[in-house]
């Protein structure tokens, strides 16, 4: 049995759609094209699709944080009902080193040797006829270890801290002007440390992958953020011809950065190869907390020096983040300070502390989310010290060019966000003094912060086929990870082809469609839109010849590699302003958010429905980051003390008030579509806006996330 076909935009009329000029799908609200399929259950996710002869793999994870495997007692397990195989380091297929989503990553080298680099490292895969049999056997498998001492305690002054080498993902340190002299000459100085904990992304759909060999070709159904990238990685890792690997990822129930190149997928391919039958591996929620990546803890020191009028003389931001001894990951928290405020002297430093933990990874707005908490909190402290309104202080320090890079902005409409947000939030009514408003036992406060996120674009390929029936089929290895990308691309294609959306069949998430940047970095829709638009131009040239369309249609392709690479260098970012009102009971420490407003400058908005959903979702996560989310490392075991949804709290419905998100005009032609990715910016600045509101309510700064009730209670002075 094969996977069901992609849901398509349904043609509502029998007659062939007419090509009309001036369709305006982009910018108008549209329900998701696959919405009906999703709510009726017709849409199948990677773990749902039945396959004949499907076997089930279950992961066995290490229970020590560092050491070597001494023995794996497979005998009793192999005798258990339904068990087909136990893959481990002594019998697993050999893999090619040097493969990874972002450069060589030893995390991909599963079951290759006896080393255990962290607690939760996959040490075996048990394969059985049913998922229940595989699980029972996996839980019965006895693995013994020669344990070695481990170090999982993150601290800013950890002796192992080092400065990572600059790369495409790691920005160079900046030292400009004399920070110490400017601080000494400043009328007001803020010098504080802010910390954020480990945070874990939990998509509704846990990670799942099915692999099988079909006619000499490796076929994979996975839940990932980029089918073509994953296919290329699999080919490299298993030393296969790239054309002999096909990866599909039709529907993805959330990813947030966690669905790159998964261990479960690699092990499913191993098992399918060894057993020569389809094998599926699905993660449990607890396994999701083990090795799919997380946002590392950060410790950030921010020093600001300003004249009495609030003009910044010095800005220093040193961001230290947790990394892994297995594979380096840098949480680039300084991206916010590099882009937001001008200062005479600038010092920006990045360090990492490698520990015996899984490699952290991208989590919604990597770097930007924790960095904005530190910098936007510090700006609020500076506003307090200089007696300036927080918005005026920010406007006062608007830079003419990007502070760190010196590059011009492609567009920067953050002031419009401040103004519109202030107007709609009622910011002018704010009494700047903290602790002046009450509602019964609740102290009330308001706060704001700036938001920003890079709005990049990357190469992609796309093809469009003009079908004989007058419809158009678009093929691009895009991914819709729940964002509404499939719908947005349908709108874009309709406009580019000057047809109605009903005439467009959008096929995505199939590696056979060719290379395309993955759904990440808020770059997906922008990158894919460009390729689709170029393909539409190429197709219209072919169709302009006026020949009748043959049965197989007329196809045109586009590759934007040269176009993307040929642009001048600019800082392209989305901006925003977030406002929050909180209520704090200082006798119990409870914090409740009463309302949030976010106003964003995010280029051309393709679909207001899904764009608002993305922004509100991000802001909700910002609230959750501010008040709830915290992965607690258990020092003794090296694992998490709260690695499931019973222990790892995120905001419940009752915590989330009316959240409003909207946007201002933000024309930008740096990329031809004028789109700026907006999937991540919603989470940026929210935690700072809430922390600043908590200060306004209580007069006490909260510099460590989450703002737990015990922190508020013990920081406050208001006991009876």
């Amino acid at each position, binding site marked *: 049995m094969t996977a069901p076909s992609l849901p398509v935009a349904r043609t509502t009329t029998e007659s062939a759609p007419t090509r009309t000029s001036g369709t305006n799908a982009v910018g108008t609200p549209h329900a998701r094209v696959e919405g009906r399929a999703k709510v009726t259950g017709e849409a199948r996710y990677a773990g749902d699709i039945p396959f004949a002869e499907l076997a089930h793999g279950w992961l066995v994870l290490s*229970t020590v944080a560092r050491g070597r495997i001494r023995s794996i007692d497979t005998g009793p397990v192999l005798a258990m009902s339904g068990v087909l195989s136990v893959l481990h380091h002594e019998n697993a297929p050999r893999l090619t080193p040097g493969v990874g989503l972002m450069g060589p990553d030893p995390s991909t080298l599963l079951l290759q040797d006896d080393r255990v680099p962290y607690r939760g490292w996959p040490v075996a895969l048990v394969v059985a006829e049913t998922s*229940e049999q595989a*699980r*029972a056997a996996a*839980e019965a498998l006895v693995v013994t270890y020669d344990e070695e001492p481990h170090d999982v305690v993150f601290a800013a002054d950890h002796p192992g801290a080092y400065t990572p080498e600059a790369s495409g993902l790691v920005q160079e340190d900046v030292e400009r002007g004399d920070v110490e002299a400017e601080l000494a000459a400043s009328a007001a100085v803020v010098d504080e440390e802010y910390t954020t904990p480990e945070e874990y992304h939990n998509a509704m759909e846990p990670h799942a992958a099915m692999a099988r060999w079909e006619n000499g070709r490796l076929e994979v159904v996975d839940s990932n953020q980029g089918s073509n990238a994953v296919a290329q990685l699999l080919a490299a890792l298993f030393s296969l011809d790239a054309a002999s690997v096909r990866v599909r990822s039709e529907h993805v129930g959330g990813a947030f950065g966690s669905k790159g190149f998964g261990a479960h997928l690699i092990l499913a391919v191993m098992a399918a190869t060894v057993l020569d039958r389809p094998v599926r591996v699905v993660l449990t929620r607890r396994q999701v907390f083990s090795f799919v990546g997380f946002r590392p803890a950060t410790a950030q020191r921010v020093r600001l020096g300003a004249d009495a009028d609030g003009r910044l003389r010095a800005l220093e931001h040193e961001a230290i983040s947790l990394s892994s001894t297995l594979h380096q990951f840098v949480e680039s928290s300084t991206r916010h300070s590099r882009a937001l405020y001008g200062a005479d002297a600038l010092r920006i430093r990045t360090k990492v502390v490698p520990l015996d933990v899984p490699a952290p990874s991208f989590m919604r707005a990597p770097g930007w989310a924790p960095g904005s908490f530190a910098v936007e909190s510090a700006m609020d402290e500076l506003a307090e010290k200089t007696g300036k309104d927080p918005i005026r202080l920010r406007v006062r320090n608007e830079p003419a060019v990007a502070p760190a890079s010196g590059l011009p902005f492609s567009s920067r409409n953050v002031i419009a966000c401040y103004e519109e947000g202030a107007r709609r939030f009622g910011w002018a009514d704010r009494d700047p003094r903290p602790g002046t408003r009450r509602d019964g*036992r609740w102290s009330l406060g308001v706060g704001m912060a700036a938001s920003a996120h890079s709005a990049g674009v990357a190469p992609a390929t796309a093809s469009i086929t003009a079908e004989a029936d007058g419809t158009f089929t678009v093929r691009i290895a895009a991914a819709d990870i729940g964002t509404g990308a499939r719908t947005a691309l349908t709108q874009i294609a309709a406009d580019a082809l000057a047809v109605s959306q009903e005439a467009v069949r959008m096929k995505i998430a199939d590696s056979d469609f060719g290379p395309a940047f993955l759904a990440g970095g808020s770059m997906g829709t922008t990158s894919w839109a460009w390729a689709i638009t170029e393909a539409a131009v190429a197709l219209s040239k072919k169709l302009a010849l006026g020949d009748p369309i043959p049965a197989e249609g007329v196809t045109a392709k586009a590759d934007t590699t040269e176009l993307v690479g040929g642009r001048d260098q600019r800082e392209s970012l989305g901006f925003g302003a977030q406002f929050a009102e909180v209520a704090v009971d200082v*006798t*119990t*420490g*409870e914090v*409740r958010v009463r309302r949030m407003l976010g106003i964003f400058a995010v280029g051309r908005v393709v679909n207001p429905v899904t764009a608002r959903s993305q922004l509100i979702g991000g802001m909700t996560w910002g609230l959750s980051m501010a*008040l*709830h989310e915290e992965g*607690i490392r*258990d*020092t*003794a*075991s090296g*694992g998490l*003390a*709260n*690695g*499931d949804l*019973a*222990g790892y*709290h995120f*905001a*419940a*419905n*009752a*915590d989330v008030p009316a959240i409003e998100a909207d946007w201002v005009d933000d024309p930008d032609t740096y990329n031809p579509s004028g789109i700026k990715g907006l999937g991540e910016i919603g989470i940026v600045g929210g935690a700072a806006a809430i922390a600043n509101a908590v200060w306004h309510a209580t007069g006490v700064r909260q510099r460590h996330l989450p703002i*737990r*009730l*015990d922190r508020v*209670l*013990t920081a406050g002075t208001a*006991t*009876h």
Partner: protein
Amino acid sequence: MREFDYQRASDAPEAVALLAANPDARFLGGGTNLVDLMKTGVENPALLVDVRGLPLDRIEVAGDGSLKIGATVTNSDLAADPEVRRRYPALAEAVLAGASGQLRNMATVGGNLLQRTRCGYFGDTTKPCNKRTPGSGCSALTGEHHNHAILDWSEHCVATNPSDMAVALAAFDAVVSLHTVDGDTELPLSEFYLPVGDTPDRETALPPGALITGVTLPAAPVAARSRYRKVRERASYAFANGSIAAALDVEDGTVRDARLAFGAVASRPWRALEAERVLTGGPATAEAFAAAADAELAAARPLPQNGYKVPLIRNLVVDVLTELTQETTR
């Protein structure tokens, strides 16, 4: 999850007999806690005896004015019952402060009394825990314990009892009815939960194989003016960091009667008898309430991460008793 058998019992004697025949069996109520523990391998019963269909789903006012609550009454029905809301409002509030609507629809009174701690180490079979595996050690004592006990813990276990309902029941002198192979018997809630000591795995004084058939709340006029307040890390769907069930009778500024119990501070719902003693006969003032809280909390031994619970409970006592006083005076 181990394979298990399932049988439905139709009355208490049958249920108890089934369990007596199979010591590796467990009673199944709503399953909102037991099934989770089975999925994570903490519980591995060979047999589940489903007692949810037993004819124990009534709430009745007895001739002596006491309230008799059947063991299979759901948490939702308990919280919605007009007699509960009128006579023991703190109990209805406590139940509604727990879990979610869906869970309350399933969870039973009997099961609620027997729910296990939510200490993360207890629920993780890959880590030491004396409650789960006696003698393996207490991971929380030196590990993560910001929401663990401040009262009456031992070096063997610092976990708390998670129930909200049981806190209100403790305040109102509940008596637990049991059925055993020897017949019906009773156990005051104050004796139902055992101190931790060096046997944290032994949580209750329930005789082996006994089935909880109901809970009786003696008539208590003071309970008609009662309140439950729960402090937690999010607005719903979280266990308490500290909670209080309180009832107060004030006349002419003097406390005539008081009931106080705390949640999330010990391995069992904590009846604050010392605080009640200090309150009774004294002035109904914030200072007196604080003194009563201090008297109770003098025995507190906070751990490095949970010292905040002492001021939290103190503040809750003062706040809630002050609110009740204002309502009495009004």
